[in-house]
């Protein structure tokens, strides 16, 4: 009996949270290029009346969702074996928050941490120079440089950029980015 009660209780708590925090988008599952385009239209429809902020949220979503599409380590076993990610867009008082998470191999977490740290520390002009560097000299088949330009672009668009990595097992960690756009 207690199990049933716990389940029900959690459901309502979760439901409450979604209502309170005004979630524009909440998605966990396989990501496809088509789904990204579809969700991007929902985002545009949801955020109206603030064209600048709406466009920034749209553009951050596009880059980070594409990083999940190409680089998440979690793969859906059914259908086309798409990569899996979690995306939230939350409407808060002063800003919109975009949260994107996906599994990565533990072997790349130190590189990811270093890259995110660099992105966070650089001034805007330095960040633009870094983006030019990644764009002008793409190293073919180098996953981290491909994913890097999307991260840099998202950071250039956002007003704040935070990341967290939580180790899930000996092999995988959960990598989460939190970006905000001021209203």
């Amino acid at each position: 009996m207690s199990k049933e009660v716990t389940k029900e209780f959690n459901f309502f708590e979760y439901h409450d949270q979604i209502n309170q925090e005004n979630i524009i988008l909440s998605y966990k599952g396989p990501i496809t290029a088509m789904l990204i385009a579809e969700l991007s239209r929902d985002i545009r429809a949801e955020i109206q009346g603030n064209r600048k902020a709406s466009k920034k949220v749209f553009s951050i979503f596009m880059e980070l969702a594409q990083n999940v599409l190409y680089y998440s380590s979690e793969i859906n076993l059914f259908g086309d074996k798409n990569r899996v990610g979690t995306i939230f867009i939350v409407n808060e008082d002063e800003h919109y928050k975009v949260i994107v998470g996906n599994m990565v191999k533990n072997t790349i977490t130190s590189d990811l941490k270093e890259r995110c740290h660099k992105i966070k520390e650089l001034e805007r002009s330095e960040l633009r120079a870094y983006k030019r560097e990644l764009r002008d000299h793409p190293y073919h088949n180098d996953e981290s440089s491909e994913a890097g330009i999307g991260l840099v672009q998202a950071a250039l668009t956002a007003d704040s950029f935070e990341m967290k990595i939580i180790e899930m097992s000996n092999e995988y960690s959960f990598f989460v980015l939190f970006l905000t756009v001021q209203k």
Partner: protein
Amino acid sequence: MEDLEIKGESGVFYIPTVHLNASTGECEISGESYLEDTDEFYNTIIKWIEQYVQEVKNAITFNFRLTYFNTSSSRGILDVLRALKKYEDDGGSVTINWYYPDDDDSIAEEAEDYMKSTGLKINMFSFEPED
């Protein structure tokens, strides 16, 4: 030499509108760019420019009027600009006009970044985007 026309659409993907005119040398790409196969799309434009350089050899004016493009498209655009820079270096007359939405600083910044990356002169103009 034939013109290249691509009708833009905002359907499953965001495909820009392209008009490349072989008789006047007036070229324009406009709209939004998020594509299924970005390399193929921009390579089609680059091949057209290369053919124009070989066969027509006249002045070329390239107008960019994009309101959104993702970072993979931004690589494609860089390659288009590199092809135009090569033509200019070889003695061709090249004019690049970059129209950016007046509510979007990042697209204006992209033009500055492309100038730094390619050494091309890019004329910048703001415009009021339609809803």
